[in-house]
């Protein structure tokens, strides 16, 4: 601390939704207080089945709003507009990797700072692939993937597998968010903001999506409809019961908890083959930091200082990678080593610039996703509804929602 304003004691509060990182954030806050004794940071983490938004809303409406809070996508940016401080003068903003600020930019204003990056694809079991003699880097088209899947499927018993895939049909978000991004995003350049502002949805690549769903379903461990995330990751993949699952780097801590050796030695991730983006991985920003514009000026300043410190100072950067185990969305981390192979894979793709964006953030926090898209996908999965109807309902629903906005 060196400015005169900082001689006064400031208390700032952070409200964030990554409960997993609760402990780490608190440690960082404590540590920051040691080096900046006049700044006290309290961290509140929301999780465990409670959505983040209502808590934030209650906090705001009860006059108890946090200094720093998080935004998930364009819908949130819109929703909390009145409380978002312009951060464009921050050093961290300037360091943010290209493309990571699209969602939070309006005109010259930047209202958010990316937490981190996340990437997803097919997370696979290296040992299984090796035994089956498949090199995942070659699986760049649907056909190649299909062939490999059939091959593994043929060796299912000798590999001790319950299926090639594990498709969590009970929770359709792996399909509605991540998978759909590949096919829906095409129309919007994989930009969430663009999609958020679009009145229409063509869904031209829907047949490709169907193919991919069908493939996963057909070769999945059964019963698909009963499977949830925990079964998919904890029970099947982590125990070596399936060859691959469609997930992202965020599952690393879960696998680690169950079998850290397995994670270290046996897990890899390759992109889901999709026309036009061969060999590229969708890497995006799941959350942004925002600073409450209604809070005290001194608090705003302290908040900015803290975030700048976190993402640009040497000590902060170390924490980001080692403590929070984030894939950094900022420059200056080039030689950093990620904590797990999955993050490493995503980070490598990012460094190699072989990535594309996350359009699905456009519909997180809107009703289309939970009320239209997911139920329709679920109906298709259960065999109750044809794919055509599914597509028709989904695109019509989108049009309706966007028209109402």
């Amino acid at each position, binding site marked *: 601390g060196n400015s005169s304003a900082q001689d006064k004691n400031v208390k700032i509060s952070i409200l964030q939704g990554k409960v997993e990182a609760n402990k780490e954030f608190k440690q960082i806050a404590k540590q920051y207080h040691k080096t900046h004794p006049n700044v006290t940071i309290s961290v509140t983490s929301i999780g*465990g*089945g409670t*959505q983040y*938004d*209502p808590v934030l*809303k209650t906090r*705001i*409406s009860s006059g108890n709003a946090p200094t720093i809070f998080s935004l998930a996508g364009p*819908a949130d940016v819109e*929703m*909390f507009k*009145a409380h978002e401080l312009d951060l464009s003068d921050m050093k961290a903003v300037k360091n943010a990797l290209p493309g990571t600020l699209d969602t939070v930019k309006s005109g010259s204003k930047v209202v958010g700072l990316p937490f981190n990056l996340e990437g997803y694809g097919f997370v696979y079991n290296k040992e299984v692939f090796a035994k089956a003699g498949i090199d995942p880097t070659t699986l760049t088209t649907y056909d190649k993937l299909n062939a490999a899947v059939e091959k593994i499927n043929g060796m299912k018993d000798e590999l001790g597998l319950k299926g090639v895939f594990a498709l969590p*049909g*009970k*929770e*359709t978000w792996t399909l509605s968010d991540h998978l759909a991004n590949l096919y829906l995003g095409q129309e919007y350049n994989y930009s969430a903001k663009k999609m958020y502002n679009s009145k229409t949805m063509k869904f031209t690549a829907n047949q490709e999506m169907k193919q991919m769903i069908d493939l996963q379903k057909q070769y999945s461990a059964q*019963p698909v*409809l*009963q499977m*949830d995330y925990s*079964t998919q990751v904890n029970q099947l993949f982590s125990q070596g019961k399936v060859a691959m699952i469609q997930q992202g780097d965020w599952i690393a801590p879960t696998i680690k908890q169950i079998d850290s050796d397995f994670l270290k030695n046996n897990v890899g991730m390759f992109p889901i083959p999709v026309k036009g983006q061969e060999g590229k991985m969708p890497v995006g920003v799941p959350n942004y930091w925002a600073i409450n514009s209604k809070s005290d000026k001194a608090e705003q300043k302290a908040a900015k200082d803290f975030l700048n410190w976190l993402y640009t100072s040497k000590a902060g950067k170390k924490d980001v990678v080692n403590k929070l185990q984030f894939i950094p969305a900022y420059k200056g981390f080039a030689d950093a080593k990620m904590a797990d192979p999955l993050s490493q894979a995503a980070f490598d793709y990012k460094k190699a610039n072989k990535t594309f964006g996350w359009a699905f953030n456009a519909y997180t*926090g*809107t*009703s289309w*996703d*939970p*009320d239209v898209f*997911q*139920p*329709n996908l*679920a*109906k298709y*999965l*259960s065999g*109750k509804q044809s794919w055509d109807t599914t597509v028709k309902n989904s695109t019509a629903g989108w049009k309706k929602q966007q028209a109402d906005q």
Partner: protein
Amino acid sequence: MKNRSLSFWLFLTPTLVALSLVVIIPVIMGLFYSFTNWDGIAFTEMVGFKNYLSLFQDHDFINAFWFTVKFVITTVILLNAIGLSLALLVTQKLKTSNFLRTIFFMPNMIGGLILGFIWQFIFTQAFTALGNALHLSWLQNWLTNETTGFWGLVIVTVWQMSGYIMIIYIAYLQNIPQEVIEAAEMDGASAWQRFTKITFPMIAPAFTVCMFLTLSNGFKIYDQNLSLTNGGPYKSTQMLALDIVNTAYNAGNFALAEAKSIIFFLIVAAISLLQVYYNRKREVKL
């Protein structure tokens, strides 16, 4: 106690004040918001009855309503029957009574998510394992369609809440003067007749309370719905409370959600209060 008297109001003040602060005023505010386009933080315009009108086209809401009604009818019957049976069982002065009472009540000590987790394992794994062992196909694939989802919810609710209902019945059962039961015994009433003709009428207040509780809890059920099926598959097991919460928080449409909860409240209140009114009339005062 006359309601003109000071003590009447003194006795009531603490609860009345708390109720007003915590429920009545917020509900009135909610009612007001239901005529606006409130998003949980602020509103920009009054929209009149728009929210209410749009309810009637909301298929999710209507489906949720009927699903909930079905659920409520089933659970009200089961919970009261089982809860009362358990209460009778553990008031028989058996050696194991206290132990059983604790067991039956224990499910209430587990809240929300963990409950759902445990039962998912029971449905997906224990049921499946059992189904395989006994070659019963109906034990397979639970929670994957509306029917099994429905019964899954019913089972969990019954498992959790019958102990709750049980202890209410117990409390009232223990208030019956022993001599009246004895008189009935002398009159030749069998255990069953003593129950239907004496015990049951004399615990009518408990019945009123439990009917109401199961009814209103059935309508309001949220945790179990969220943690067990989360409304899935494809919203077929989504109940009213979950629908309302989703409207508010997933779709950010707080005003519509308030409108839904007002309508929901009116329906439930009409049914439940009617029930209470009807039952209370039959109770005797000593």
